[in-house]
């Protein structure tokens, strides 16, 4: 089979898989989620916060009403602010809000001509919807999943992301030929150790992200830099991918050294992208697992500056 035919078949395969996934999600319908409901006679003395559970307020809330991706419907009195990242905020006839209203990626729907909001109404923030759209990929909310168009968008986004990653990782191998070679060598020599160290590193990062982003959040200036920070944190993983790609690529194409690394990286990313159409969370975990092995090798070899060999004696440190 020649290359062109293979490419066409591959394209057809991807398209079919994407359509399949879209169909299955459409057929599944909306998963039922528990609604937080405050009745007309009820008074809540504290905040009402959810992540993806819809909120309906008919009564009184002496605090804030916040959600991440769920819709909020206000038909009562809220003493504090109403904030949602990705959900739709609906203000009905009897809505009265003493604070402000903010939505980042979602929208605000008014049922009265003059919204009864004492404070500011802020709708949409630049880049906000893109950011929280990313969250959607991992945890698709019920409302957004009903639209098959969104599923296609999500998949296309994932594919684009994978291509970008391929480009970045290949670039790294070109900018740092010596370092990538030594990192790859370390990965080949100490695969289990690299993987273990990489997994521990990833687990530590995941755990430490929580308090660090908390600290950044409360200092206010930290919140805008949180997103770029999280993106920057993925650069080591791109480098890890470079190492793994080089190891795999060199095994597959021992003669063609120029294409070995990108080929290897593509070979890793391709199944992960396909898997992400059906099981996004598993796919994401697999990505981090693979990239972590390279990251572990990078750490062991001090970013590819120190060749390592497994040792039987334990020499004292320098």
């Amino acid at each position: 089979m020649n290359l062109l035919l293979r490419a066409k078949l591959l394209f057809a395969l991807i398209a079919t898989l994407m359509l399949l996934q879209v169909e299955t999600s459409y057929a599944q319908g909306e998963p039922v989620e528990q609604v937080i409901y405050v009745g007309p006679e009820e008074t809540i003395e504290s905040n009402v916060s959810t992540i993806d559970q819809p909120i309906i307020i008919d009564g009184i809330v002496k605090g804030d009403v916040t959600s991440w991706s769920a819709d909020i419907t206000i038909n009562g009195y809220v003493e504090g602010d109403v904030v949602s990242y990705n959900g739709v905020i609906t203000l009905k006839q009897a809505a009265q809000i003493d604070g402000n209203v903010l939505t980042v990626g979602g929208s605000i729907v008014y049922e009265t001509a003059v919204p009864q909001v004492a404070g500011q109404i802020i709708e949409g923030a630049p880049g906000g919807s893109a950011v929280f759209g990313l969250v959607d990929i991992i945890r698709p909310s019920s409302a957004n999943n009903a639209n098959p168009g969104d599923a296609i968008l999500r998949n296309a986004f994932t594919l684009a992301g994978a291509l970008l990653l391929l480009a970045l990782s290949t670039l790294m191998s070109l900018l740092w030929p010596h370092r990538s070679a030594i990192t790859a060598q370390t990965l080949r020599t100490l695969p289990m150790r690299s993987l273990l160290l990489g997994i521990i590193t990833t687990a530590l990062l995941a755990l430490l992200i929580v308090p660090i982003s908390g600290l950044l959040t409360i200092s206010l200036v930290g919140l805008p830099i949180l997103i770029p920070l999280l993106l920057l944190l993925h650069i080591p993983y791109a480098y890890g991918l470079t190492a793994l790609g080089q190891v795999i690529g060199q095994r597959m194409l021992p003669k063609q050294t120029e294409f070995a690394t990108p080929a290897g990286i593509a070979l890793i990313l391709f199944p992960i992208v396909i898997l992400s159409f059906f099981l996004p969370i598993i796919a994401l975990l697999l990505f981090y697992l693979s990239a972590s092995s390279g990251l572990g090798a990078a750490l062991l070899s001090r970013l590819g500056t120190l060749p390592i060999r497994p040792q039987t004696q334990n020499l004292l440190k320098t």
Partner: protein
Amino acid sequence: MGRGNNNELSEAEERAAHETFQALLERYGEPKTLNPPVNLAARITSQLPNARPAEILRRERRRLLGRSLLLWAIGLTWLVLSALGLWGIMVDSSLPALLVGGPQTALGHVVLAITLAAKPLFALFSSINLLVWVVGLVTVIALGWAWWKMLTQVQPMVLSRNQL
């Protein structure tokens, strides 16, 4: 390594080891003294600062003081901002914006937006109960220890050609 047998070497043993070692070095032509580059001494003296030693020391101390003051200033700023942010998130969300000119101004608008946007994130953090925090802390310490151990237990080795 325990104290055991290596603790008290007799004078004779000590001297023997010393002489054996010297013989070993001699086999390789050591100890050798290298000649420093001819102009090194001149270079060094020409680059001496123009002040007295005491003055140099004073300048150094001042620089170190300046650096630590800077760090303290950053830390304090962060503390103040965090206190402000915490107040804005938990008590009155319009206060931070008011401090920079009010929510009508461009800056105030942004500050208010940030304060509000912090709320759902903060709600998530405060919903994590103490037990989870403690378990998390213990896990981080354990993982951190393992991480450090794994990272520092490898040594660069002098490799032989045929091992490649």
